[in-house]
């Protein structure tokens, strides 16, 4: 599953990144493989989305979120 498909309120684990270009930026923001993140909501127009990572909130566009492969955790 890709991050942009995850429903709001769902917790997921990051598996891998598809696109090398923004990989580094995401790492620096704390989105490491195996990190557990939660999709918190969407901007009023549906894009960008925002997520909780460790102690912070990060907003990113759907076009970026679709490069992040995640797994739903229960």
């Amino acid at each position, binding site marked *: 599953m890709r991050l942009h498909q995850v429903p709001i309120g769902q917790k997921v684990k990051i598996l891998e990144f598809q696109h090398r270009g923004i990989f580094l930026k995401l790492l620096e923001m704390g989105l490491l493989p195996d990190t557990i993140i939660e999709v918190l909501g969407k901007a009023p*127009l549906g894009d960008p989305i925002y997520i909780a990572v460790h102690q912070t909130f990060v907003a990113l566009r759907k076009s970026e979120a679709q490069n992040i492969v995640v797994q739903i955790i229960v």
Partner: protein
Amino acid sequence: MKLALIGNPNAGKSSLFNQLTGLNQKVANFTGVTVEKKTGTFSLPNQSKAYITDLPGTYSLYPKSADEQVVLDFLLNPQNPEKPDAILVVIDASNLQRNLLLFSEVQSLGFPTILVLNMIDIAQKSGWEIDTQKLAERLQSPVVCTNSRSGEGIEKLKEKILDLEKNQPNIPHTILQTYAPFENILQEIAQKYQLPNTYWANLYLHHYEKLYFLTESDKQFFQKLELKNNFQALPLQTDETLERFRKIEKIIAETTQKHEKAYNPQSITRKIDKILLHPLYGYSSFLMVLLLIFTAIFRWAEIPMEWIEKGTAILQTFFRENLPNHFLTNLWTEGILAGIGSVVTFVPQIALLFGFIAVLEETGYMTRVMIMMDKIMRKFGLNGKSVVPLISGAACAIPAIMATRNIDNPKERLITTLVVPLISCSARLPIYTVMIALVIPDKMLWGFLHYQALALLVMYLLGLLTAMLAAKVLSRFLPFLGNDYFIVEMPTYKMPRWKNVLITIYEKVKTFVFDAGKVIVVISLILWALASYGWGDSLEKAENSIKKSYPTLSEEELAPLISSAKLEASFAGNLGKALEPIIQPLGFDWKIGISLITSFAAREVFVATMSVIYGLGNEGNEQSVRQKMASEINPQTGKPVYSTAVGFSLMVFYAFAMQCMSTFAIVWKETRSWKYPLGQLVFFNLLAYLASYITYTILK
């Protein structure tokens, strides 16, 4: 002692800077770029002075934007006169893992460091227990806990800085597995450039293309090395980052404990975001915020602005009456004082707008604005944050252009700066109202739509649409790159720190008055000279001929007629007449020509100049000017000069033309280049000419 302050965005870096330096700070730009550089001084416990530079917020030493690139240039440039003796790395104590990445990179460069664990109160409240002593041992760097909101820990920090100055610290040598295969070439670079260590050499190799202090031959040298050794920057950067995070994770596990606590600083923010990012409540609350800002700079600012105008007038009269009637007196009262007055009138608007913007930034709401507007604004090559300058531009372009500073992406910032003057500002309103009243009937369409109101709406929409269109075109053709991604950290909501708000207002007003102010005063002096002097004794002749023609009139009745004749005989008058053949296709005569020249001071001057030309003196109000203009008959056609075609042509001209010296000055100040304001002047005026020509031709 020279220091640099570095840290992630939202780590409380600027608050800490304000706590350390108070008002002893200066704002300038970093060399060659329009990235704000704050420097300041403060006293250490032994009374010696420390000099500190606040570097832009960054997540790592692998820059993704111009702001972040500045950090790298600053740290790596061996010729940097402010090269720090030590670096304070400010980190958010409740997010150690991510924040320590930057710390570990800075430390690898070999700088003495102090790790500042900021917002320690929030970290403790949310259950983090940090063994700072052990952390200092493991990181081999002094550690200080601070709360930059309350000022707690600042004295302790100053003591640690003094310790560093007294005792040269041992700087740990980091070895990274990632670069083991490249050890030889990194040694070679370090030797060639006499660098302190191989990590420094490594950053040269990663970033040589963008480091401004390297020469072309240096760059060729690096390029060859890169190709020969198959050095692939991006994968190495990610490997390095992952390696650092593994080390950081270990250190955190050894030095911190997380207790489950009821207090979660995030939970309130989550709840607020549910409302403020809600499709309906989100936009309506944002609209209210914009309305409030707009009312403030449009209405509230008017009151102090009036005081300033009156104050200037009182001063002018005072000096005119008490100084001898001399060229220097005129220069002082009509030229310099008037110029300074027109600079100071902007202060209330700037102060109010930046008060609001500082509060929006401080509370964390500005990031939400970015998120809400991103989808719409990105279509035009603009940033979500561009909304605030664009809306403020409807009151005045000067504070609006200054507000573009808050846009981090330099390309989006430049585009916003360039298109803001197209938004119809309040100075265009007097021209619009005079012309609309002159040429649009005071009637209703379908019984409820006022024609005049509709015409005004059309003018405002015209400005807005052109601005958005121009942004779209510029984003295609501007030849430099911005980020093509949007990954933004959202700070938790906080109460604004009023001290920071006040410092922001003070700094903005100060730089405007002393920076853009001097350009405004010089231009207004030139305009004053053009309108007050003419060739030889042409002005005297004009005065005498009026006196001769109206021998029966009293001096009071003569005065407005004389000023009209004088203006016509002045350099500005000559220029206006010389302009006539050029502006005739737009339906303008030499009288409008003169007003076009004088109203470069500010658009609303148009009405005052028309009043003088029509012999109504300086005090002619909008209504009397309008009546005079309405009765003006073209001697060739026998019809009124101000037809609907001329009226619209003139309004369209003012909608587009860069008829404002202060906008010119502020664009120069913000872009640090004459290229952009001159480009706007030429391009907007050509656009205005063309649009007026089309309007006039169609409506004629």
